[in-house]
């Protein structure tokens, strides 16, 4: 047996936009074990429920993440609405679905760019981020914010989208989709991308299940987990099935995200076609009393906002279980046995959002 050494990876590393530390136990160039540690940017957002009234906490929930902020706010609102027995108008559900899917497009394109960058494919990186600009422009036009939207509230949404704008958004998707197809062709069929990703960081279906993998990390290993199947917002009324790949390697996780871009476009089209008229919010009276585990599908996987109200305007507890937190054990499994040079690509393949995880 070779001598084992421990090599620190992070918290500052070129492929890591945010800090996480891994102690890599190496035998020659092979990683035999990994010990992760976090906490560099822990913010304690969950305890702020004691300081902010429950309608105000939406802003805190949104700021859990700078990428999928809308989905955080929506998931929190769903939890409170369920506890309080509020019937949110259908139009608000459809608007939430549209903005959620634009958030997914934004997040996946951001990740695809970073992933291309981690492989040294700078042109592809810039191409992915060019397409992301289109999504951010739509978000800005319809919500007023490119990254933090602030358009979701307990009881519905703050902003409506008029029919003319919806029609134009639908028409614009055609050109956007055409550009994505060209980009997807490179991610899925280019030899240099495939040879860098195929067979790297394999997570078996059983390991994905036992370790609790969610989102594209789980679906890339053949586990068809997708919280949108629960039918929250308008998803229960739209035709939709999860994108699943079987190989469990970095390529499979990348392919899931690439194909989800087109799945999101289809969901947005369906939502625009079917969105009903009417109100976008209901009046909220009283304070929440009770508890609920509100679930949704973030771009990185299943998100859980546990809320517990005690009949006052301040919640007793907010617990945010983010997908990156639950994808850390699967990451440990993926890294065991890999080559040192593959570590950056494998770490990035779970699309780690440390800001979310350190909420």
């Amino acid at each position: 047996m070779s001598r084992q050494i421990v090599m620190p990876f992070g918290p500052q590393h070129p492929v890591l936009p945010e800090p996480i530390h891994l102690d890599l136990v190496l035998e020659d160039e092979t990683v035999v074990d990994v010990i992760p540690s976090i906490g560099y940017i822990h913010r304690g957002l969950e305890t702020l429920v004691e300081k902010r009234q429950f309608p105000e906490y939406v802003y805190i929930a949104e700021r859990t993440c700078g990428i999928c902020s809308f989905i955080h706010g929506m998931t929190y609102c769903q939890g409170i609405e369920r506890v309080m027995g509020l019937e949110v108008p259908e139009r608000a559900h459809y608007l939430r679905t549209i903005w959620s899917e634009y958030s997914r497009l934004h997040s996946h394109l951001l990740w695809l760019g970073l992933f291309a960058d981690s492989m040294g494919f700078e042109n592809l990186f810039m191409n992915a981020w060019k397409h992301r600009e289109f999504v951010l422009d739509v978000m800005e036009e319809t919500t007023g914010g490119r990254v933090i939207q602030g358009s979701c509230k307990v009881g519905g949404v703050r902003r409506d989208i008029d029919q003319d704008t919806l029609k134009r958004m639908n028409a614009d998707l055609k050109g956007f989709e055409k550009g994505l197809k060209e980009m997807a062709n490179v991610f899925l069929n280019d030899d240099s991308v495939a040879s860098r990703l195929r067979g790297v960081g394999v997570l078996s279906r059983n390991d994905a299940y036992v370790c609790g993998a969610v989102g594209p990390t789980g679906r890339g290993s053949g586990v068809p987990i997708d919280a949108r199947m629960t039918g929250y917002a308008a998803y229960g009324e739209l035709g939709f099935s999860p994108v699943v790949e079987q190989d469990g390697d970095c390529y499979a996780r990348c392919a899931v995200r690439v194909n989800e871009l087109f799945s999101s476009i289809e969901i947005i089209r369906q939502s625009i076609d079917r969105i009903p008229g009417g109100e976008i919010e209901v009046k909220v009276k009283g304070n929440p009393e009770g508890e609920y585990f509100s679930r949704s599908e973030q771009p990185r996987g299943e998100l859980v906002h546990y809320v517990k109200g005690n009949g006052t305007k301040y919640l007793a507890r907010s617990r945010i279980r983010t997908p990156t937190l639950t994808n850390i054990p699967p990451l440990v499994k993926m890294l065991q046995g890999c080559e040192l040079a593959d570590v950056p690509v494998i770490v990035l393949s779970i699309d780690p959002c440390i800001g979310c995880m350190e909420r």
Partner: protein
Amino acid sequence: MKPENQELRVIDTAHLIGEVEDYRNKGYRLVNMSCTRAGEEFEISYSFELDLRFENIRIIIPLDADISSISGIYWGAFIYENEMHDLFGVHVRGMNIDFKGNLIRTTVPYSFRNPSFRGEGPCQDR
């Protein structure tokens, strides 16, 4: 929107491992573990899902009590258990990976155990 039905059962701490093993044997996946301080006790909830059936079990323990780890049943549970230890000071016996308080390194040890905001500012007008 279809509201999700969620089942929650409070169980005896002594039955925890048996209940979790049952979920594992039936094919449920572990979704979440969360800890909530309720007065002088902790409520520790375990959430599971199978084919969109979402179920929760809960144990209620005194603040200074130990609990058994379920990481021998669900390998990935160590991340939640270490988090509970580091934020709430809940002692978990038999974790498959024990960071010994170094997973989340906060300036204030067990910073969620005694919420610092309680009794200050706006909370006073409850």
